[in-house]
C-alpha cells in the first residue's frame, strides 16, 4: 500500500516541478510571491494521496494581532512594579492604600483633561493627526439644535440630558407633533435608566466613553454611591409619559419595569408586569430577568420565592421567550436566598441551562459554590463542587458575560482556604493564569482579596521554599499583603524552621509599610528572640533588631512594650553586642518598663563569660533601682558565680538582704 502511494507521490512531485517551471517562465518574476506556497502545496500532496488540493484561505489579521503576539512573549514582570506606574518611579506605590490613591489620581487626571477639552472645544480645534484620531478631539456635549423638533429631542436623548429631553417632549406634544415610537422608546429608556434625574455632571466624561479606556479603580464604588439615594417616585415623568402614550408595546413596559426594579420599587414593577399581561402584551427577556432578580424583595417565604420564580419561568416559556445566561444567573442568585431548598434546585437549574444549550458563566459557578460551601459544616461538599467546576473549566479562555463573573475567583479561593485544599488552589490559580483569564479577577479590591486568600492557603499548607517562591512572584507586583498575610508568612517561617530569613522579611515588611503595625513587629522580635541560632544568624538578627529599635526610637511610630524591649535586648546579648544591650537597659528605665527575668539572667551570663564582675554588680544595682522582685536572686547568683572584690561583695550582700524583707 505504501509503495504505490510513494510512486504516485513521486510522479506528482516531478510533474508538479515541471508545471511550476512552466508557470514561472510564463509569469516571469512577478510570480515569486506565491511560488513558495505552491511548492509547499506540492510537497504536501506528495505526502498524502492526491484527493483534493486545499488552498489555504487568506488569513486576515486583526490590527492587534501583532501586538498581542509580542505581548504574550513579555507577559507580566513579577520583579517590577505595576506597569501603570512605571513612568513615575517616585510614585511607585508600596501599599494598597498608595496603590489605590495613585491609580485614582492618575485616572482622575485623565478625566479632568477630558472634561476640560469637552467643555472648551473652541481651544482644541487644531487637528494635527494624520490620519485623523477622533477620540482625541473634543466631543460635543452641549446642545446645538434649539428649535422644537423630533431631531432636537433625539439629540437630547443621545446627550443624555434627561430634563431637557422631557421638556422637549412636552413641547412637542403641546405643539401637536407626533413623536415616533422609536424616539419614545429612547426617551423612556433614558428617563428610567437615570430615574428621572440628570446624571451627575462629573459622571459625564466617564459615561461618554464606551471604550475600555479607564482602568477600573472607579467602577463600582462610584456607581453604587451615585444611585444609592435615588428611588423610584410615584408618577414621575416616566410614568406620566407612559400613561400619555396612545399605545404601549413591550419596550415601553420593559423600560419602566427595569427602571422600577433598579430604583427599588419591585412591587410596583410586578404590578406593572401584571398590567402588561392584562393588556396582552408579551414580555421580553429583560423584563423577566429583572423580575426574577427582584423576587427576593417581593416574597419573604423561601417556598413562596421559588414558586414565584417558577411561575415567571413558566410564563417565559408560554410567551416563547428564550432565556439567556442572565436569566439563570438571577434564578441562582434568588436561590442563594431561598434557604435549604436552594441546593438541589440550583443543580436542577444548571441542568436546565445545559439542556437549553446555555453554557454556564463564572457567575453561575460562583452562585453554586456559595450555595454549597458552608465554612463550618460539610466543607468537603464545596471542595467537591469546586473540583468539578475546575476540571470543567480547565484550559478554557473565559469571557465575562455577567458582571458577577468577577466574584468567582475570590470565592473559589475562599473555598480552597476553608477546606485547606492546596492542590485545588493551585488548579484555580492556573486557571486564572490561562490566557486572558486574569482579566476576570475583577477590580483591584477583589483581586487583592483573591491573592490574599491564595497566599494564606500557601502559608498554611505549603513548604516554606515554595511559599517563598510564590511570595517573590506575587508580592509586591500583584498585591500588597495585609498584616494578616505577613503574620501568616512569619508563622510559616516558624513552622518550617527558616527563621534565618527573618531579616529579609523584615525589610519587606518595611517596604510594604507594615513597620508601624505593632503585632507584626512584636511577632518578628518574638521569633528572633525565642531560640538561639548560629553566630552568623545571630549577627544578622542583631542588625535587624537595631533596625527595629530605630523604628521605635527615631521614627517613633510605635510604643515600646515590655516584651519588645526584652526581646531586642536578648537578641543583642546573643550577638555579643553588650554595649548596645546596656543601652537597651537604659531604655527600660526611661520608658518605665520592667525587664523580665530572662533578660537579667542573659545579662549575667554574658557578664560571666566576658569576665566583667563590675558590670554584673551594676546590673544588680540597676535591677534594684527598678525595684525588681528578682534582685535578691540575682545578687545571690552574682555572689556565687563571680570573682568579686570585697567592696562589690558588700554591695551585693546588702542588696540581697534588702530584697528579702520586701518579699
Amino acid at each position: 500500500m505504501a509503495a504505490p502511494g510513494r510512486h504516485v507521490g513521486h510522479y506528482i512531485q516531478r510533474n508538479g516541478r515541471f508545471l511550476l517551471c512552466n508557470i514561472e517562465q510564463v509569469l516571469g518574476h512577478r510570480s515569486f510571491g506565491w511560488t513558495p506556497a505552491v511548492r509547499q502545496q506540492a510537497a504536501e500532496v506528495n505526502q498524502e494521496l492526491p484527493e483534493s488540493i486545499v488552498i489555504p484561505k487568506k488569513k486576515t489579521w486583526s490590527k492587534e494581532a501583532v501586538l498581542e503576539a509580542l505581548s504574550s512573549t513579555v507577559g507580566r514582570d513579577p520583579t517590577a512594579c505595576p506597569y501603570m506606574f512605571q513612568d513615575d518611579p517616585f510614585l511607585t506605590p508600596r501599599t494598597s492604600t498608595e496603590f489605590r490613591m495613585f491609580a485614582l489620581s492618575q485616572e482622575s487626571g485623565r478625566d479632568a483633561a477630558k472634561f476640560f477639552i469637552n467643555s472648551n472645544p473652541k481651544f482644541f480645534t487644531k487637528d494635527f493627526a494624520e490620519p485623523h484620531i477622533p477620540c482625541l478631539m473634543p466631543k460635543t456635549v452641549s446642545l446645538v439644535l434649539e428649535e422644537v423638533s423630533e431631531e432636537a429631542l433625539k439629540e437630547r436623548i443621545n446627550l443624555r440630558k434627561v430634563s431637557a429631553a422631557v421638556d422637549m417632549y412636552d413641547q412637542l406634544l403641546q405643539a401637536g407633533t407626533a413623536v415616533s415610537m422609536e424616539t419614545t422608546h429612547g426617551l423612556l429608556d433614558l428617563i428610567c435608566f437615570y430615574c428621572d434625574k440628570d446624571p451627575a455632571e462629573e459622571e459625564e466624561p466617564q459615561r461618554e466613553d464606551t471604550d475600555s479606556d479607564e482602568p477600573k479603580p472607579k467602577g463600582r464604588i462610584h456607581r453604587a454611591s451615585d444611585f444609592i439615594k435615588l428611588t423610584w417616585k410615584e408618577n414621575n415623568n416616566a410614568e406620566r409619559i407612559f400613561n400619555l402614550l396612545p399605545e404601549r408595546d413591550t419596550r415601553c413596559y420593559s423600560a419602566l419595569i427595569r427602571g422600577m426594579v433598579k430604583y427599588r420599587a419591585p412591587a410596583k414593577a410586578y404590578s406593572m408586569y401584571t398590567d402588561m399581561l392584562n393588556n396582552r402584551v408579551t414580555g421580553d427577556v429583560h423584563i423577566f430577568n429583572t423580575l426574577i432578580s427582584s423576587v427576593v424583595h417581593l416574597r419573604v417565604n423561601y417556598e413562596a420565592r421559588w414558586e414565584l420564580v417558577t411561575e415567571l419561568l413558566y410564563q417565559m416559556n408560554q410567551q416563547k421567550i428564550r432565556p439567556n445566561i442572565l436569566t439563570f444567573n438571577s434564578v441562582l442568585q434568588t436561590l442563594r436566598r431561598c434557604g435549604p431548598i436552594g441546593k438541589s434546585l440550583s443543580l436542577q437549574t444548571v441542568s436546565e441551562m445545559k439542556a437549553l444549550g446555555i453554557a454556564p458563566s463564572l457567575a453561575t459557578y460562583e452562585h453554586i459554590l456559595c450555595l454549597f460551601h458552608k465554612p463550618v459544616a460539610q466543607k468537603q461538599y464545596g471542595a467537591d463542587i469546586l473540583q468539578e467546576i475546575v476540571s470543567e473549566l480547565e484550559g478554557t479562555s473565559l469571557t465575562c458575560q455577567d458582571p458577577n463573573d468577577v466574584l468567582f475567583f475570590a470565592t473559589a479561593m475562599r473555598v480552597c482556604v476553608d477546606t485547606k485544599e492546596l492542590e485545588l488552589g493551585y488548579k484555580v490559580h492556573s486557571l486564572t493564569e490561562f490566557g486572558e483569564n486574569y482579566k476576570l479577577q475583577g477590580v483591584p479590591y477583589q483581586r487583592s482579596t483573591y491573592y490574599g486568600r491564595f497566599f494564606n492557603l500557601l502559608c498554611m499548607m505549603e513548604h516554606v521554599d515554595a511559599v517563598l517562591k510564590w511570595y517573590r512572584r506575587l508580592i509586591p507586583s500583584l498585591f500588597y499583603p495585609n498584616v494578616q498575610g505577613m503574620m501568616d508568612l512569619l508563622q510559616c517561617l516558624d513552622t518550617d524552621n527558616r527563621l534565618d530569613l527573618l531579616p529579609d522579611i523584615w525589610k519587606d515588611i518595611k517596604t510594604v509599610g507594615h513597620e508601624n503595625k505593632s503585632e507584626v513587629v512584636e511577632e518578628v522580635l518574638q521569633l528572633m528572640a525565642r531560640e538561639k541560632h548560629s553566630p552568623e544568624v545571630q549577627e544578622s538578627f542583631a542588625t535587624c533588631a537595631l533596625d527595629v529599635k530605630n523604628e521605635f526610637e527615631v521614627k517613633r511610630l510605635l510604643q515600646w512594650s515590655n516584651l519588645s524591649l526584652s526581646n531586642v535586648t536578648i537578641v543583642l546579648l546573643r550577638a555579643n553586642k553588650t554595649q548596645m544591650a546596656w543601652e537597651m537597659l537604659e531604655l527600660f528605665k526611661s520608658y518605665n518598663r520592667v525587664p523580665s527575668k530572662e533578660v537579667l539572667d542573659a545579662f549575667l551570663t554574658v557578664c560571666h563569660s566576658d569576665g566583667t564582675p563590675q558590670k554584673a554588680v551594676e546590673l544588680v544595682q540597676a535591677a534594684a533601682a527598678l525595684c525588681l522582685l528578682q534582685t535578691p536572686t540575682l545578687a545571690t547568683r552574682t555572689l556565687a558565680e563571680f570573682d568579686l572584690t570585697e567592696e562589690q561583695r558588700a554591695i551585693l550582700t546588702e542588696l540581697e538582704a534588702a530584697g528579702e524583707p520586701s518579699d
Partner: protein
Amino acid sequence: MYRFLSRTVCAARNSSVIVYESCVLPAKCEKAAAPVFRVVNGGGVNTLSTSSVRFCEKKDDVVPSNQDEKTTAVKEDPPTETDQAKMAKQTEEPVVLMAEDGSTTQQQTDVKTEPVVEKPTEAAIDAAKSGKQHLLDLLVAMKVEVTSKKKFKGTTIKQNYESIKHPESKSEAMESTISMFQKATEAASPPSETLEPDLVAAASAAAATLPDSNRAQSVLLRQLRERKAITEAQKKGDMSKLGEIIADMKVGRQYSRQKPSASSQITFDDDERGYTRDRGITGELVGVRRRRNFFLAKRLNIFSPTTEDDAVQSTAAQPTLWDMEFANNLSQVTNQAPRNGFEEMIQWTKEGKMWQYPVDNEAGLEEEASVSFHEHIFLEKHLEEGFPHQGPVRHFMELVVAGLSRNPYLTVQQKKGHISWFRDYFQQKEEVLKEANADLN
C-alpha cells in the same frame, strides 16, 4: 477501632505465617487467615505502594499475595471476571515489591512460599462448599474470629494455632516478621513466649515458698516473659525497633487513607460485581464518578427545546441604552490595567490612537483606496467639454492639468473641482476673451 482491628489482623497473619513456614500442614489455619487477609488486602495493602518506608512490609507482602491466590481458589464459583480482577491485583503487588527491593531475597521468599501454596488450595477446594458464603460473612462482619477454623479442622497443630489467640503473642509476632524468613528454620519451634519448662518449674518452686503461691507464680512468669521480650527485641538491634515503629506508622497511614471508603470496599466484594478497589486508580475513578453526579441532576423541565427562529428574533433589535450600559459595565469590570507596554499599545490601537500593525502607509486613506491611480494622473479627459480645443486657454489648462496630475495631496474630487472652477471662469469671461481675440477658434 479499625486500626486496632487491622493491627490484630496483621498480628494474626504474621503468626500464622510463621506457623505455616515452620510446619507446612495447617491448611485450615490458612483458611481461617485467608478472609482476614482479604480484608487487609482490600483495604490496607493497596496503599502500601504509597507508603514510603517499607522496611518490614516488603517481606510480608509476598505472603498476602500468596494468600490471595488461595482465596481465589476458594471462590471458584464466582464469575470469572472476579477472579481476573483479583489476579490483576495480585500480580500488581509483586511487581511493586520487585521494584522496591528487586533483590534476591524476594526471589528466595517466592521460592520458599511456593510449595506452601499448593497445600491450602487442595484443602480449600473441599472446603469450598460453604467457603464463599462464609468468607463473605466474615468480611461483612469484619470479625477476625479465628474460631472459624474449626469448620475446616481436619488435623492437628491446634496448639500452634492457639498461640495466635494468645494476646501476648502479638507484639512478638510483629517483631518476628522482620527477620521472619532469615530464621525460617529456627521458627519451627513455637514462636510464642512460652518459656522453657525448667524455668517455669523454677518459678513455680520459688512461688511456692511465698504465701499466695498462684499469684506469685503468675507474677514471676509475667516478669520473665517481659524480660525475654525485651532481650529479644534488643538482640535484634535498633533496626528491628525501627521496623516496629515503621510498621506502626504504616498502620496509622492505612487507617487515615482508607477510612472514607472502608465500608464500600466490603460491599463491592459482597455483591460479586467483581470490582477490585485499588486505591491507586479505581479508587480515584470512583471518587470522580461520585462527584460527577453534582451536575447531572435532573433538570427543571420548564423550558421546551428552543427553535432557531426565536434566536433570530431576539438579535434583530437595535442596542438600547440599557444594553450599552450593560456592555459598558462588563468592560469596566473586566478592564485590567495593562501589564506591559505592548498591552498598552493594544489599548491605544483599539482607541485609534496608534498607527496600526502591520504597518501600512495608506492607513487613514480608506476612501482613496477605491480610486485608481489613472484617475489622478490622466486628467485631460476633463478638458474635453467646456474648453476650447486650441489656443492660449487650452494651453493654460493643459499646464494646469499637468500640475494637478503631479499633486499627491489632492483627492480626485478636489482636482475635478479645480478644473470645473476654471471651466466656469472661462465661460464667464467668454466675452472678454472674444474681444481680446484670444479665442483662436
